[in-house]
């Protein structure tokens, strides 16, 4: 086997990430915690894999939706209790 055909045969296998590994790298990717080499491998994979691209988009969407969760409204009793707490602190301070 020539050197060239050897390279052609083995290069893709050593370079391309399996999707199963990609989904474990997504957070590090979004957090910018990957090394430049890992980042390149991931982006190379994403460019050719629509499912992983969709997966990444879904992770971004998940984060975006979580950020829109508003805290529940306070009950009037809670509000009253806390304002009493503030007034007591003022007197005590």
């Amino acid at each position, binding site marked *: 086997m020539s050197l060239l055909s050897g390279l052609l045969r083995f290069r893709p296998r050593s370079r391309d990430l399996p999707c199963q590994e990609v989904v474990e790298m997504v957070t590090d990717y979004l957090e910018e915690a990957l090394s430049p080499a890992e980042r390149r491998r991931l982006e190379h994979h994403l460019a050719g894999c629509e499912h992983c691209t969709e997966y990444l988009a879904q992770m971004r969407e998940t984060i975006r939706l*979580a950020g829109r969760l508003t805290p529940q409204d306070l009950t009037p009793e809670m509000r009253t209790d806390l304002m009493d707490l503030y007034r007591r602190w003022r007197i005590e301070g």
Partner: protein
Amino acid sequence: MDADASLVRRLRGGDEQAFADLVERYHSSMLRLALSFVPSQAVAEEVVQDTWLAVLRGLGRFEERSSLRTWMFTILVNRARTTGVREARSVPVADAGPAVDASRFGPSGAWAVPPEHWIEEAENRVDAAKLAELLRVGLNGLPARQREVVLLRDVEGLSSTEVCEVLAISEANQRVLLHRGRSKLRQALESGLGGGAR
């Protein structure tokens, strides 16, 4: 932190509206976070009440090395940890299932059951209340330590540095917990909104 500085000044000066605004903004958030550490709503409410008092009493010492919000969450977490029992029982970081169930990949590690589409559903077709409910259930289903990180990072919008400060964990640890938590939340959305019969 100019906004914080002026808020602290108003709080110290007895501005009730300033306190009312702060309470309105953070009380439920703190309650939600406290519930991750303690066994019941009643205990969580107590912890948050104690936290408010500690915040007021500590205002004179607040030095703006961190934001007011980070400082308040730190006080809350410390109190909740002292009170809580759930934290002690919670699974260690290494609990870790995979981000996506292994059965969805073929032997080569490529997708066998690819992600179902749901983004458009979430943005255009589902009403906000159903979506919020799905997210709440998803969050509540997370192991406590993952939930704490996702709440602070993604729901409250703290930076990773702030989250590490509030929870007293390392950056690497934070990332692992965030990864597990977000992955499960994504799965909850896919299961709730995706088209197929999974």
